[in-house]
């Protein structure tokens, strides 16, 4: 440990400190690699010593994440990482706890734990790799697969609507909600960093390409000729500008967004992004855009709120009761109530 503290007594970690002895075992070209390298990049700068970081996951390709970073890790069972993570955080609130999950793991079998985690606002960061497919089990559709998608279990196309993971996180009360893309490493690093530093449940949906079973599902957001028209980067304080030449802007009409040509002279009239405004109307509107073909899909932070966390509340309650009733003494406890003595 001592060699990780610099002369000013500050923690000094490097990427290589997080190298695990296991080689990543994803398919060549899998989007998971991109997330891993950005994650490794931000970890040294969080100010948290390695031994206080815990990675928890369920089952899936994405859920193998914990093996590839040298922190504490628990590779759980399918869909249940949020509850394991909750137990870890409540047992030791000093720990920085991450959940790595997939669209199947986190939203299909694990959907309930996910929404309850968001509701409780336990201080945990959830990173969801959305590849719109079950990768590990060889390509069945998932709850984020697009209607009509042909997969191993839907040879004639799925007949289900897709979840909107960002809306689910917002509706269930997560205090930090964001989205990014595997192919945009800078953005990814920025969002992961902000999520990791947030106190409360932070949720990051990552559009991740599964080259084997669902290649190109996000191509309109990643192909260089299309992405600028289909993606909008939400930056705090900035208008919603997008388009191949940054030539378009979203204008809020009070109910919906209209697309207009960006006009610098109207700069002042444009709505500016504010992830801390707390307007349900705006948050959910922005979240709904990924399912609206007429509007670009936003990436960045949808909500960033400070709200009391479950873990703090618990510690506070424990301290309050101790203040009121005194720190518990085992003997008193056992001998409380109506006792009598046989001599």
């Amino acid at each position, binding site marked *: *440990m001592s060699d990780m503290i610099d002369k000013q007594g500050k923690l000094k970690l490097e990427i290589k400190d997080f190298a695990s002895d*296991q080689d990543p075992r994803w398919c060549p070209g899998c989007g998971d690699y991109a997330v891993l390298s950005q994650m490794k990049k931000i970890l040294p700068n969080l100010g948290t*010593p*390695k*031994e*206080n*970081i*815990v*990675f*928890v996951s369920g*089952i899936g390709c994405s859920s193998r994440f*914990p093996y590839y970073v*040298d*922190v*504490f*890790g*628990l*590779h*759980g*069972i399918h869909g*249940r990482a949020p*509850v*394991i*993570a*909750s*137990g*870890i*955080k*409540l*047992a*030791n609130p*000093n*720990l920085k706890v991450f959940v790595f999950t997939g669209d199947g793991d986190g939203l299909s079998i694990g959907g*309930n*734990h996910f929404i*309850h985690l968001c509701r409780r606002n336990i201080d945990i960061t959830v990173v969801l790799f959305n590849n719109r497919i079950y990768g590990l089990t060889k390509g069945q559709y998932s709850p984020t697969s697009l209607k009509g998608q042909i997969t191993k279990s839907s040879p004639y196309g799925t007949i289900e609507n897709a979840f909107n993971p960002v809306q689910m996180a917002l509706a269930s009360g997560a205090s930090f909600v964001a989205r990014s893309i595997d192919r945009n490493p800078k953005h990814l690093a920025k969002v992961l960093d902000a999520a990791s530093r947030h106190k409360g449940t932070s949720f990051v949906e990552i559009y991740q390409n599964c080259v084997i079973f669902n290649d190109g599902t996000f191509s309109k957001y990643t192909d260089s000729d299309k992405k600028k028209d289909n993606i909008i980067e939400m930056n705090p304080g900035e208008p919603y500008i997008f388009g191949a030449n940054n030539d378009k802007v979203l204008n809020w009409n009070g109910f919906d967004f209209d697309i207009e040509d960006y006009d610098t002279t109207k700069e002042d009239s444009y709505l500016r992004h504010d992830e801390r405004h707390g307007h349900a109307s705006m948050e959910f509107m922005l979240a709904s855009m990924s399912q609206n073909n007429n509007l670009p899909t936003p990436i960045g932070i949808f909500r960033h709120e400070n709200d009391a966390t479950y873990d703090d509340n*618990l510690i506070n*309650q*424990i301290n*309050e*009761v*101790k203040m*009121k*009733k*005194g*720190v*518990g003494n*085992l*003997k008193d*406890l*056992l*001998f*409380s*109530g*109506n*006792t*009598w*003595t*046989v*001599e």
Partner: protein
Amino acid sequence: MNPAALKVNIPKLLPNAILILNTDAFKEKNLQLAKFEQNPINDDTLKDFQVFPVAITTLTREALKDAALSVKEKDRCKNFFALGMTYWMFTRPLDVTSEWIKQKFKSKPEIIEANITALNAGYNYAFSTEIFTTSFKISEASKKKGTYRNITGNDATALGLIAAAKKAGKELFLGSYPITPASEILHALSKYRNYDVKTFQAEDEIAGIGAAIGASFAGDVAVTTTSGPGLSLKSEFMGLAFMLELPLVIVNVQRGGPSTGLPTKTEQSDLLQAMYGRNGEAPIPIIAAKSPADCFRAAYEAVEVAFKYTTPVILLSDGYIGNGAEPWLIPNPENLPEIDITYADNAETFYPYERNPKTLARTLAIPGMAGFEHRIGGLEKEDITGNLSQDPENHQLMTELRAKKVEKVNDFAKEPEFHGEDEGDLLLLSWGSTYGVIYTALKELKTEKKVSWCHLRWVNPLPKCLGGKISNFKKVLIPEVNAGQLIKLVREKYLVDAVGFNRVKGQPLSSHEFMEDIESHLKGL
């Protein structure tokens, strides 16, 4: 009972008697009249009884809100409301009394209707709220010196867990989801925040055990509590806990099954589920409490074993002892066994699946320990290093090691309670809450034949001595409140033609019936 009646009757009541109190009658004024200083429902006055406070007047009036009667007349129906409740409690049908009411008030149809409505409403109220669960008086007069208090099994379990955590110098974490008849353990533990008890009411049973596993990984004494259907839901996570070899206590307060079954009734029918209810080869130690007060020791011991052998442990209790109460000889905390929890101490040589050669426990290290970063999970892992492994020989080895470790619990466990001579005609072999009934039956049994009794505390592993004991008797009789579960384990292991005394009625065994059964067996010997 109103306060005045209560005051008069308290001395006459047997300990653990059932008291249904009309809270509407426990208002300032009546209390003063009866010379109670405080409301006895809220203080300790009634600690020795099973108290069910119910707003009988309000509820009766509400039930009769459409009846064309005066308030006074309505209030007179209160007794039928209370009667309805007791009928539910003792599963008696309502029709006989309804008939009687019809006869009695023949000339007053409104009164008939009101009384029957009240009777039904009382019954429904009891039914609706799962307020009364099977809980009969269990009381074994003890003459041992010491300080006593009355305690229910669920409260004793809660205290046993806290005591173990305190002795281990650890915080206690409970991940649980409410379910009859286990909820009271959650209720009890949630009161003890000042004892560093963290209760986490999870979204379901799966989340309850999952959070407990997380808490165990992070270094708490971790527990999950439930009843039958909840244990089913925990199956998959129990497999993970087994594979992770993390200390964990799983308390199952059994109730009448299968499925939703008879939620407020008692049964011992989850033993085989506890033994085998998960995929793959995954044996878990099982301890059973024999009486309400014994839940304390059983819970304590479960924690000891969980840490000593880095394993999940299942504690089986049931509705009968969970809700029932008896006097408890309170132990001095100083005399409770020490629980020491050791962690890895050398980061250089640390391997998470390196084992203590004596106990086969694996080497624990928890988050926060610098240099001990490692990863565990549900995939098969290599001996010692804990790395993922699909090697066939390694899988065979690990399967055997995990099974051997469970057998090792016998090094820790005391010999089971044994009454009678070491050899003879009939051996009674039992576990869990049948203890009281067997105890009573044996006391009353008059026979010249030699009858002995062995009551198991650990059901898995079965004690080493058991085979020897069994072989010294002409016949082995195994009484259980199920269709025959321990008997399966015993027949399989010792190839002895044991016979069962089995009743599946949602009730404790009748000691009378049981006596008869013993006698008929003795005749044949």
